[in-house]
Structures are given as C-alpha cells and as structure tokens.
C-alpha cells in the first residue's frame, strides 16, 4: 500500500522552544542569512514557530504554532509552476526539483501559508559550519525556490532499507528532523494511510483542524488546538 505522509501538531504541547527550527536548518542545509538580510525579510526557515497572543490584557494567552509546508493534496503551488519544478509525488508530498526551478517565484505567491523560500544570494556557511552540511541533501544555488520536504531524504533512505530487508516500514521508524528534536513530542510524523499510526490517531482527534482549511487546499498537517484553560 502506498504511503501518505502526514503530520500532527499538538499546540497544547508546543512550548515554542524552537528546537525544531534549529534541527530543520541543520538537517536540510538551510543557509542562515545574517541579521542584515533577515531584517530585509530574506530569512529562510522551512519551519517557523508563529507566536500569537490571544485575548485582551490581562487575560492573555500565548499560542505557538509551528508552521511548515502543509503538503497539501490540492496544492496551489503546483499548477502555477511553469516547469514542473513544484510537483506532487506518488506518496502525496509536494516535491520541489531545485534543478528544474527557474525562479519565477509564482509558487511562493500562490502558497497561502508562505512556506516557500527563495535563494536571494548564493548560500554561504561561515567556517566551521561548512563541515556540518548534510551530505544527503543538495545545497541550493541562487535563484531557486526551496521548501520543507518532510525530510524526504530520510523517508527515501528508510524505504530503501525496508525494501532491501523485505519488510514493512514500522510506524515511528521515520522521523523528520523537527519531530525527532521536539522534546515535548508536539510534532508527530507518520503514515496517514496506516489507520493505527500515531499520526492517524492524532489526526482524528476532535481537537484537530487544518490550517486555513476553508481555502480547500487539503493539507496533510493537522493542528490539535489548545484546550480552554479554566
């Protein structure tokens, strides 16, 4: 049976620590652009932790929401790409072929979640950071779009391993970098086609909702909302 990768994010558990953001940068060779460029709006975080204040003072409550590519089933970024750089894989991932991207940036405009990023300059890693680049992930050159892949390099490696061992993948065998680094276990990754997987179970929660669900993008990330505190 084909896999259908998805994620569940429990907002009650998220403490906003940002470990997922750091892990994502390290795993996926995402360049840091420095304070100057970040101030110009060129920061690249495939995964970001949005911070919202709810309520009026003094009854305010802080809400953190980690937002990564929602891997939509009806993704607005895909049909607009003139070169198929942004396309849908058999396992339901929104893949980005960096070498095919010519940098129209149309996908970034079409994405309602703003989770697609553009290489404004050729990326640089100040020494000794260049030694920690992940050899499994390509480094993107100037002028291409990039985005969260659900750590497709880990998915593919595990699938090849399972196939070689003639066995089925176990739930939890594949962890994205963000889910692996989440101390509070707020992020859970897995196969939505497996009804018994953790992610399927959490996605069915009555607290669950999709981000900007009314746009009809059919995201595969489910957010479990914070429960009212008495």
């Amino acid at each position, binding site marked *: 049976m084909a896999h259908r990768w998805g994620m569940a994010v429990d907002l009650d558990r998220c403490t906003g620590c940002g470990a997922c953001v750091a892990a994502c940068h390290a795993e996926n060779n995402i360049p840091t652009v420095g304070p100057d460029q970040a101030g*110009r709006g060129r920061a690249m975080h495939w995964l970001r932790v949005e911070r919202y204040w709810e309520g009026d003072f003094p009854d305010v409550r802080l809400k953190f929401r980690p937002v990564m590519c929602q891997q939509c089933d009806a993704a607005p970024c895909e049909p607009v790409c*003139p*070169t198929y750089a942004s396309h849908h894989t058999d396992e339901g991932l929104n893949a980005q072929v960096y070498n095919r991207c*010519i940098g129209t940036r*149309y996908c970034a405009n079409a994405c309602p979640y703003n989770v697609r*990023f553009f290489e404004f300059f050729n990326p640089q890693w100040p020494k000794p950071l260049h030694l920690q680049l992940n050899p499994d992930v390509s480094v993107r050159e*100037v002028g*291409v779009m990039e985005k969260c892949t659900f750590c497709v390099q880990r998915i593919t490696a595990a699938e090849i391993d399972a196939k070689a061992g003639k066995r089925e993948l176990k739930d939890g065998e594949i962890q994205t970098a963000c889910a692996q680094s989440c101390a509070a276990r707020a992020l859970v990754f897995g196969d939505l086609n497996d009804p018994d997987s953790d992610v399927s179970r959490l996605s069915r929660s009555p607290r669950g909702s999709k981000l900007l669900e009314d746009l009809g993008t059919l995201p595969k990330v489910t957010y479990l909302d914070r429960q009212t505190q008495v």
Partner: protein
Amino acid sequence: MSDAPANRLSDDLLRPLLQTSWRFYALVAFLGSIVLMGLGTWAYQMYNGFGVTGINNPIFWAVYVTNFVFWIGISHAGMVITAILRLVNAGWRRPVTRCAEAITVFALMIGALFPLIHLGRPWLFFWLIPYPSSRQIWPNFRSPLVWDFFAISTYLTGSVLFLGLPMIPDFALVRDRTTGWRRRIYGGLALGWTGTPKQWHRLESAMSIMAIAILPVAISVHTVVSFDFSMAPVPMWHSTIFGPYFVAGAIFSGIAGLLIVTAALRKFLHLEEYVHPVHIQNLGKLLLLMSLLWAYFLFVERLTVWYGNESAEIAVLRVTQKGSFAPLYWTMVVCNFVMPFSILSLKKLRTITGCVIASCGVLIGMWLERFLIVVPSLGHKYLPYTWGTYRPRPVEILITISTFAALVLLYTLFVKFVPIISIWELRAAEHPSPALLPAAAREQALGETQA
C-alpha cells in the same frame, strides 16, 4: 504621382528619413547610454543574485511584474485602437495608426523582457518554451506563465504583421524616390510592390483579416496577464473581474501612451498639417470614456470586496485605502479619474496640452494601479505572522527607467527609418480616385468631416 499636393505630402513625410540633424545623434547617444546602463544593471543583478532588489519574503513579485503588466498594457494602444478604428473606417485614424502600431510592437518587446528580468535564473528561460527535449520534459501547460508565453508570442507575431503590412506601399514609395543603399534596402522591404490592382486587393484583404484577427488576440493577451494574478488564491487577486478590468486598464493606458507619442511626433517632426488638433482631441474623448470605465471597474471591485467582508481581503483593502499604501492609492484615483475627468470633460480644457497632461497622469496612475494590485496583496496574505512590506531598491528603479529610455530609443530609430504617417493612406483620403484605390482606403467617413 505627378500632382503637386501629393508630392508635397510625401516630401513632408519622407523628410525625417532623408535629413538627419546632429540632434538625432545626440538623442540616440543619450538614450542609448541609459539603455546600456539598464543592461549593465541587469548583469549586476544576475551576477550578484536577486537579493540586490527589494524583493523579499512574502513580496516575491513587485516592480518588475508591475512593469510587465504596464508595458503589455501600453501595447494595447496600437492593436485594439487601430483595429477598431480600421474596422469602423474612422477617417481620423489615418495619421495615428502607424504611430500606434509601432508603440504596440516596441512596448510588447519591452514588456516581454520583464518576465525574463524577474526570473531567479534567467539563463534557463527557455524551459518555458515547449521544445523537443531528449528527456521529454514539457512546460506545465496548467501554469498561467506558460499561457503568457503563448499569448505574448502570438500577439507579437500578429502585431509585427499588422504593423508591417501597410508599410509595404510606403517602402515602395521610398524606394522609388531614393538612390544608392536606401534604394536597395527599401526595395527589399517593399517586397516587389508595384501598386497593381491585384496587389492592392491582396493588401486590402490581408489587412481586413489581420484587423479582425488581432482583436481577440489583444483582448486574450491581457486577460491571460490578469490570470497570472486571478488564478492564485491570494486575497484580492482571486477575482472574477480581473480579465475585463485588466483589458480596460490596458486600453486606457494604451490610449494615454498613444496620445503622448502622437502629440510629441506632431511637435518635433512638424506634422501640424497632418495631425490636426481634432485627432488628438478625439483620442482625448476615447481616453475620457476609458477613464469612466476604469473608475467603474475600480468601484465594482472595491465594493464587492468590502461587502464580502472576508477577513484576508479586508486586510488588503484597508492597507490600500487607509493604511501605508493609501498615498499611492489616492494618487492613483486622482491621476486615473479625477484629473482626466475634469480636464477632458470640459471642451475648453480639452486642448492638445490638456490632453497630454491628462495622459501623463493616466500613465502614472495606471503604473500605480498595477503596483497596488501586485504588492499589498502579497504583503497581506492569510497568516498575519507572515505579513510584510516592500520598498524598491536602486537596481529595480534603474532598470525601470532604462526601459522607458529603450522605448523612446526604439521609437526614435523607427521614425528615422520608416515614414511614421502612412503616406498612401493619407493620400487616399486627400485624393480619392476610386479607380485606383482599394476599398479599405475609400472613405465612408466617420469623423472625416471634422478633420
């Protein structure tokens, strides 16, 4: 060809081709240096990366896309206006058709550059084109950017033909009146034209076909340009009104551009005898009509968004009407509606100067209109956490300025090598001799009596 007035006419209109003053060389050198500066700036942008522009996350499109839409809009001057005027056989079109069609071709060439300038990796632009590839990869035909490629290349081909066909008899005229290298070059361009009835008949049929064929092409081009926006789920882009709104805006700015160019040519080439105030005033009336139509579209667009009260769209509406984009927004309203309306609706103010002032306002206003469609929406998408703003950087400003210089340069060169007023069409109007003249040139006359 022996009668004196006809000779005077062609003498007057051929003079710019045959006599060149130092001012021409100075102008070409000046404009050429600005264009070279623009090309250098583009090279700088390619070498250093797109980060030298003001583009950021979330505003991934800005001035370049604004310029793209603006220039494609200007290109509607020629085709839509002259095709309609040719089809209804309006006599007052004669002196302005070729100016208008030349604007179309040059504005399209410049407009078509902008999708390339704005690419992250412009050296791979040919991946937008369906060409036989060994890996059998085609462009994505679902993408409005690919539709753009087809629309613009069709329009460019059509408009070059539409501009070129009626130039053939004039090239023949130049061939017959010159010697040396001019005679050889224009002889080649005249494609063996001798002015037989059969040739006139062929020219007439070809022009009728093109006038009818170019209209749907022109309208579809700007509709496709509007689809670049309306196909994306972005607040205030995703609108059903965008197709006709963009077409109306394109014709609006196109008329303004045409009016300015016509008035400038009249002044600098001393064509007062051929371009009468009534020609420019008639263009002014058309401009007034389009100004009202544009204001109507703006009203409909804004009112439906306001009534719909969808939170993301209201955020964009507020930031343009009252927020940080409000100064630009209200400048646009004044330039596109208040000023042209008050100047052009009063007969006393509808002089050549008045029309030119109104047109300059419309060009500024229509550029701002496109900017205000592109930028505030991208800066205020659904998640407030990702909101952002934008300010153009010198690279974008220099490239924008150099494209204006490029248009003037192309036009100056065009006027130098081609009679800018269609001599045979004008002559046909002045001396109708039914035996020789094709039906297309025979006057039935809308507006002819006024001229």
